[in-house]
């Protein structure tokens, strides 16, 4: 980039920094308020057995209501989320330590999150809970069926699990092949059936449709018929393009070329839809920065009270 461009970028960043500084100095923003609620559990004799407080996020405009208070942990979290969002966006200007730091946090936290969720949702209730149900009920999942008995067949998946984790050991890597084979075999088994039924047989059946489509009055619906014929021709020509056992020459070549055209339209549609998706995601992140963090007049601030009519008057909103 030339010097003029650098100067323009510098001005843009300075303006953004001044705006942020102005918001910090003057505006109320970047705070999270919560409403506290006391949960009380009574014992069989009616006495209070246990109680604790739960906190629910409320819109900032309700901060003066009774029981609403500023949440320090969530406010810190909001700022952490906003700063990390900006760190990720900083990659657009170029690779930098802020981006790499944010990336490292998400890698580490996500991997551990998956481990935790796997432990509490599957390993404890479905593995340990089947082998030693009484013990599992005493601490982790007391809601397990009280009549459930130990099922020692589950020692086999436990053994396979240990063998899978053996992969982390410096020697005996082959041991993990057994559970891996189980995994691969099972995947091959259910995918074979699933794909053949839903993506092969059902798709062929759905393509064998009448070319003459009748309308409500019993006559021929010309446009629907053209659509049906085009679809059938499209499927066949695309399949011929995928078929490489025949040389793509003559009629086969021309049909294959038609197939390519159909595929290009498919990819064009895919591109259009992908753009749509990505912009929606960007909108959501910018809404987070503008509304949740910077409080630039959130259209959903009144969501809880349900009295907002800030947008879409044309829709009767």
């Amino acid at each position, binding site marked *: 980039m030339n010097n003029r461009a650098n100067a323009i970028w510098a001005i843009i960043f300075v303006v953004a920094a001044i705006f942020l500084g102005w918001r910090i100095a003057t505006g109320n923003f970047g705070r999270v308020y919560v409403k506290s609620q006391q949960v009380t559990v009574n014992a069989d004799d009616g006495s209070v057995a246990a109680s604790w407080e739960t906190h629910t996020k409320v819109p900032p405009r309700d901060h003066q209501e009774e029981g609403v208070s500023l949440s320090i942990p969530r406010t810190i979290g909001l700022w952490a989320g906003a700063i990390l969002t900006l760190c990720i966006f900083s990659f657009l200007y170029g690779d930098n330590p802020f981006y790499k730091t944010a990336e*490292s946090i998400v890698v580490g*936290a996500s991997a551990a999150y998956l481990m935790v969720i796997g432990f509490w949702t599957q390993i404890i209730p479905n593995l340990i809970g089947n082998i030693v149900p009484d013990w599992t009920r005493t601490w982790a999942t007391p809601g397990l069926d009280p009549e459930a008995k130990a099922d020692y067949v589950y020692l086999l998946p436990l053994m396979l699990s240990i063998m899978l984790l053996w992969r982390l050991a410096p020697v005996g890597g082959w041991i993990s092949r057994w559970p891996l084979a189980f995994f*691969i075999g099972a995947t091959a088994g259910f995918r074979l059936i699933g794909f053949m039924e839903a993506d092969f047989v059902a*798709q062929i059946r759905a393509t064998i449709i009448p070319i003459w489509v009748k309308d409500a009055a019993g006559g021929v619906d010309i446009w629907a018929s053209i659509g049906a014929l085009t679809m059938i021709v499209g499927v066949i020509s695309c399949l011929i393009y995928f078929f490489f056992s025949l040389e793509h020459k003559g009629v086969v070549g021309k049909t294959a070329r038609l197939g390519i055209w159909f595929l290009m339209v498919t990819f*064009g*549609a895919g591109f*259009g839809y992908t753009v749509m998706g990505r912009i929606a995601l960007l909108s959501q992140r910018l809404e987070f920065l503008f509304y949740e963090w910077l409080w630039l007049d959130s259209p959903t601030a009144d969501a809880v009270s349900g009295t907002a009519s800030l947008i879409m008057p044309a829709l009767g909103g």
Partner: protein
Amino acid sequence: MKRTAPLLIAATVGFIIIVSTFIPYTESWGEDSMIWFDILAAVAFVLGGGNLLKMNLKKVSERRPGWAYSAIIIAAFLITLTVGLLKVGTHPNEVFWNKPWSGDYIGEGSALWWIYEYLIYPLTSTMFAMLAFYIASAAFRAFRAKNMEASLLLGTAFIVLLGRTYAAIILTGWLPELAHDAEPSFFGQLWNGLRLEKLTETIMGVFNLAGSRAINIGIALGIASTSLKVLLGIDRSYLGTGED
């Protein structure tokens, strides 16, 4: 033992699942196999986490370039793991109030919830949101109407991009819409079909459907042949090189 047993396991499990689909008597065999599969999927998360920790610990201990980022990964990993496994900040299930570990592991207000809400959520969603910028850049740099195929792709993308927003109404809203109560005429349908939002529907429901269906059929055949190769022991690539 090292190579034959895995082949037998893969074939047995695979065929049990296939058979259980067709023979009701064996349905529970398939269910049990799939539950074991699901358990192994959860253990795979542990394996993944363990591997990440192992690799990054090695990088830090050897002071390789970028080791500081590995240290951040390890710290984020260990903190999340600890608060998640210990259910820090969760309240017990109200029914089982005397069992402190019975609560929701990601209940609102817990430490793991905080990590999700304020670290994982903003970071992962922003990473995907960034693709909006890159897709714009790619559109500017790579999309050229060099030939018929590229022109078709571009033309379709234009119609879909405009047809899926209010731009369709702005640009082609003047074309007549079909009246609900009247019998649609040939030309009535034609003019209506040229409205951008209708053209988009036609592209998606006819041309895209045909292309996607052919792709689906192709993939299904590919999956079927790969699966059969695995079950019959012809494809053994998952066993590795056999050097260990």
